[in-house]
């Protein structure tokens, strides 16, 4: 039962990944693409958590934590780059 619900949640999350991929490809400015990149990396954290529930291994959550840290720093460095403050 719980697995079915998580399947549905994973499908919806994948849909959101695809929609923000559209904004990433089409975005007119650099800033729009970076927003799409941010949203994709945050929703991938949720995706990793769902995968770890399906596999029943707690150790996969470490990957989500590192993913969050590096995504945050990546967005920061791109933002500092486009405002010429690096």
């Amino acid at each position, binding site marked *: 039962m719980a697995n079915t619900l998580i399947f549905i949640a994973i499908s919806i999350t994948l849909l959101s990944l695809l929609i923000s991929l559209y904004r990433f490809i089409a975005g007119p400015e*650099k800033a729009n693409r970076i927003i799409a990149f941010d949203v994709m990396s945050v929703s991938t954290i949720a995706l990793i958590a769902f995968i770890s529930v399906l596999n029943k291994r707690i150790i996969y959550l470490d990957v989500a934590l590192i993913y969050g840290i590096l*995504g945050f720093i990546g967005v920061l460095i791109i933002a500092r*780059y486009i405002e010429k403050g690096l």
Partner: protein
Amino acid sequence: MFIAIAIILAIVSIAGAIMAIHHKKLSVAIIASGLVSLTASVMFLLLAAPDVALTEASIGSGLTTIIFFYALNKIRNNHD
């Protein structure tokens, strides 16, 4: 279920790779290659390799993108 995740990830990563090669602006190309590394890390997780996924997420996507941006920054400074 894993097949659906794999298909979506393959689509995202190949779109990112084509953008990384063919986009005119260098900064957009670098962000796209970071996207390729991020999806590759989720693929490693699906293949039951959390060690490699951690390494790819921290080193492959994070530090490589950061070093590319610093280099690009130096080129832009000398340029204008």
